[in-house]
């Protein structure tokens, strides 16, 4: 028997938008905090570089807007800003986050992404996709043979998943029904 797996109905899908200030301020704040927090308080928060706030913001905007083009562009711009703060080529994070933005927006039209459990799973999944795309581009295009520590990446994905539950709950306040 073939049964279509339906995770949500079309009627349940809600598309959100954000005001102009939130659209600019939230990604900028994410990039700023990501840069500042690891060295803040005399480096006592250096463990923070495990987290990827810009990625969480990319996922959040993607699933809220449910528009793949907007998700791609958001991911691209956030990724480029993040790239600019590293010493690597511009585009490594840009390409990875463009994929994530597109994927998150596309996925949000199919499944429920509002409850904490699904948010955790989505973030863990997209963190790993982000990491895989980054490594593929780094090795395939940039020809940097940097070994990837996948066990560490899985741990970081789980940590980001937990942080996403909190961050998304905070960012929900900025959502406006379209």
């Amino acid at each position, binding site marked *: 028997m073939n049964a279509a797996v339906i995770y949500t109905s079309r009627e349940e899908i809600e598309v959100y938008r954000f005001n102009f200030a939130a659209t600019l301020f939230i990604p900028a704040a994410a*990039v700023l905090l990501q840069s500042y927090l690891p060295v803040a308080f005399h480096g*006592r928060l*250096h463990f923070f*570089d495990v987290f990827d706030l810009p990625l969480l913001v990319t996922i959040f905007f993607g699933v809220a807007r449910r528009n793949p083009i907007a998700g791609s562009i958001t991911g691209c711009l956030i990724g480029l800003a993040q790239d*600019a703060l590293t*010493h690597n080529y511009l585009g490594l994070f840009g390409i990875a986050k463009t994929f994530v933005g597109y994927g998150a927006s596309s996925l949000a039209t199919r499944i429920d992404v509002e409850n904490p459990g699904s948010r955790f799973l989505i973030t863990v999944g997209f963190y790993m996709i982000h990491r895989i795309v980054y490594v593929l581009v780094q090795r395939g295009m940039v020809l940097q043979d*940097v*070994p990837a520590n996948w066990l560490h990446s899985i741990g970081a994905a789980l940590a980001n998943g937990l942080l996403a539950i909190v961050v998304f709950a905070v960012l929900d306040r900025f959502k406006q029904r379209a």
Partner: protein
Amino acid sequence: MESFFSRYRNPMILGMVLLLQVFGLAVQVKRPIDPRKPEAGSVRMIRLWISGVITPVERVFVATGNWFGQSWHDYLNIGGLRRENRELREQNEQLRIQQAQMAEDAAQGRRLQALLDFKQHFVSQTVAAQVIGSSGTELSRILYIDRGARDGIRSDMAVITPDGVVGKVKDVFPFTAQVLVMNDASSGVGALLEKSRLHGVVKGTTTGDLTLEHVMVDEKVEPGERVLTSGGDRIYPKGLPIGTVAQISSGNDLFLNIHLKPAADLNRLDEVLVVTQPQLAQADSENPVKAADILAQRLPGITQKPAESTAGVKPGPAGNSAVSNTKPTPSPAKPKVVKPPVKTVPQNEPAATPSPIATPASTPEPSATAPEENKPQ
């Protein structure tokens, strides 16, 4: 009511397309760091923009934090003590550097005395900088400091703390600079083991650990042995502590897997020193050495020279330790007083006035540049 987005949809799409193109251009175009100083190099426009947006805010954060902290202490009437403490700490940091230099000098004798003079000469020329930001990702271990091209910072300058090496300057902006920390996977530092004098390259890993590479499996390396900069990469002055050997294991190939514990706490960096004058080329020009003289020094049995003719010859600092592990022959040359160059001390720079030391002038060792990954400029 018509929303803002739907009302201005067309102009916004136009703006976005233009913005994307501008971003595309910014990615490609390089711009001089300081238009008034073309020799300062260039940097990609987008890096300049993003850095220009991010770092001022970080500077404000740091400055605000410092201001509040300072105000609180002033309120408690210990402002003077704090200032004095800061000055003493700077003095202490400088003394610790000098102490490390002297300890090495005493242990290694006259050969390293010349090296010590070299190190003192260059390490004393530093600019103090505060860490104000980072790349924010483990995939790129970058720090931002509050000193830039306007403070005399240039690419590839060594960055240290009194405890040891931190990394090197990567990109320089007018008021800030990027520091590539040595535990980044793409960084490399020419190194040598303090006791065995074995040379290798210290590299970072994706997890932020330090490893010493290119040491053969048949060499004897002990845990706890100190690892110093070799100076072979022509970035880091020779003899600065990098770390200590933490763990040794046999590698897959002919080399040992040596894990290091960094001398400086790379995760908790607050203030760092940028070595602004590591000019090995200058040492070359000041103390020209003939190849025959170097040969005479290393192989005295082959080329004998009268004392008068070698009086002007500068014996090598370590018998060129990048090439040889043998003990150098004592030089007959008379000690020469090397005066440190007159320099302008930038703001916040620790006052360093190394006294002239009577040493034989040093011979620069040949370049032993650490291998680098494919990296952007």
